[in-house]
C-alpha cells in the first residue's frame, strides 16, 4: 500500500492516477494520526515552498514526516515535495526545509522555468539493488533509456554524496540533481507521474 500525503495542495489527482495506471493500491493520508503501515509514502508537490511548508506545519505533518523518516519509512518526494526534504530553499525569500537530506534548493540559471522533457536513463540492476525491488526480471535489458518531464524554477544542489545522484542532463543545469536517493528517502525533481512510460517503470523499480 502506498500512502499519499494530502495537504490540499499540489497535483494529488495526477499522483493517484499514476498509481492506478501501475495497479498499485493507495490511500490518502489526511492526518498525521494515520497509523497505517505503508510500503512507500509519497509527498507530492506542485506549488511554492512557503505555502507548502506552512501547510505542512499547520497540519502537523512536519513531525510526522521526520519521525517516519527516522523510523526507516521509505518516502518519495516529487518536485516541491522533494525540495522540502532538504535543509533550505531559496524560493520565497528563503524557507527552512525538513532537513532530512543535506542540500539546498537554488534558483536555476535560466530565463524561465525548466519546463519540458529531458532524456534520462537508469541501470535497473543498481536501482533494484538500492531500492530492493520485489520484482526483478533478469532476462530483460538492464539499462533503460527514456525521457522524463520537468517543470521547475528551483533545483536541488546536494552537500553530500547519495546512493543515487542523477544529474539533470542540460548544460546549464548540470549542477542540479534530477533524482537523489539517500537511505530510505527518494527526492525526485522531475514528475514521474507525468513521465508516461518512464514514470511507470520508475514506480515499478521503487516498489
Amino acid at each position, binding site marked *: 500500500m502506498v500512502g499519499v500525503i494530502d495537504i490540499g495542495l499540489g*497535483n494529488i489527482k495526477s499522483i493517484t492516477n499514476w498509481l492506478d495506471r501501475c495497479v498499485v493500491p493507495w490511500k490518502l493520508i489526511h492526518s498525521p494520526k494515520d497509523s497505517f503501515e505503508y510500503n512507500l509514502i509519497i509527498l507530492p508537490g506542485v506549488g511554492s515552498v512557503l*505555502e507548502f511548508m506552512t501547510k505542512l506545519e499547520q497540519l502537523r505533518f512536519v513531525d510526522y514526516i521526520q519521525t517516519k523518516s527516522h523510523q526507516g519509512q521509505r518516502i518519495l518526494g516529487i518536485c516541491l515535495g522533494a525540495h522540502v526534504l532538504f535543509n533550505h530553499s531559496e524560493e520565497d525569500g528563503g524557507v527552512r526545509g525538513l532537513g532530512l537530506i543535506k542540500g539546498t534548493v537554488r534558483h536555476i540559471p535560466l530565463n524561465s522555468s525548466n519546463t519540458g522533457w529531458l532524456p534520462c536513463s537508469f541501470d535497473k540492476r543498481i536501482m533494484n539493488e538500492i531500492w530492493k525491488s520485489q520484482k526483478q526480471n533478469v532476462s530483460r535489458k538492464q539499462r533503460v533509456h527514456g525521457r522524463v518531464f520537468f517543470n521547475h524554477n528551483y533545483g536541488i544542489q546536494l552537500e553530500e554524496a547519495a546512493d543515487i545522484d542523477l544529474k539533470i542532463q542540460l548544460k546549464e543545469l548540470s549542477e542540479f540533481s534530477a533524482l537523489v536517493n539517500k537511505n530510505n528517502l527518494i527526492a525526485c525533481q522531475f514528475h514521474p507521474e507525468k513521465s508516461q512510460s518512464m514514470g511507470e517503470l520508475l514506480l515499478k523499480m521503487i516498489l
Partner: protein
Amino acid sequence: MRIGTTLLFQDGYCYQSYGWNMLRPLGTLQNALNHLDKYELDEISIIRPVRDNDYYYKKDLQRLKKAKSSTPLAFGGGIRSLDDIMILEGLPVERFILSSVLFDKDLSVIKRLHSKYGEQSIVGFIPFSFKNQFEVFNSRKNCFQSAHSINESALQLCDEVVLHDCDAEGRNIGFNAGVVSNLEINSNNLIFSGGVSEIVRNGESIGIEPKSILIENKILHRENSKKTYYGAM
C-alpha cells in the same frame, strides 16, 4: 522544442475550433485524452473557450477532476477571480492558463496563483488577430482590443505565454509569427498555437524558435494517421 496540443473543453465536451467562431464536437474529455495519450505528446493544454458569460466553470472543473492522463496538463479558461482559484484544488494539472486577467490592472489573481502554485505554473494566453490591424481578444469583454490594453506587469509574471492566432485556427499553416514584434514580450518564453503543425515547426517560416508549439487536434490526428499509414508500408 516541445510539441503539444490544445483541447477546447466546455460543458463536458471537447471541440475543434475553426477561425475563432465555429466549434466542431470531438467527444468527451476522457475520450479525447485517451486518444492523445497514445501519441505521447509533450503537453496538452485544456482550454475552456468561454466568453463574457461563464455558466459551466464549476461543472467543468468537476469533470476535469475525474480526468486521467499520463501527459502533462495545463488548464485555463474561466480563471478570473480569487474565488475561481479557490476551487482549482485537486485538479490533475501542472500549470494554469490565464487570459482575461492579463488585461486587469489588479494583479491579485495572478499573484495568488503565483504564491499558491509557484511561478512555473502560470501560462499566459493571448488570442490575436491581424486582419486589418493587430488586435488581441479579451474573453471577458468578448471583443478584440488594442494590444496596449494588456497589462505588461501581468505578462512578466507568466512563465510562458501562448500566442494563439485566431485567423489561422483550425488550419495546419498560417501562424503569423510577425506579431511578436507588436508585443512587449520576452521572445524566449513563447508558445505558438493556431495554424502551426509539424510541417512548419522547424523554424524558417516562423523565424523565432518557440519553447513549444500547440498543434490542433484535427491536424495532429491527420499527421499521426499519415505516419501510421506510411509506417505500415
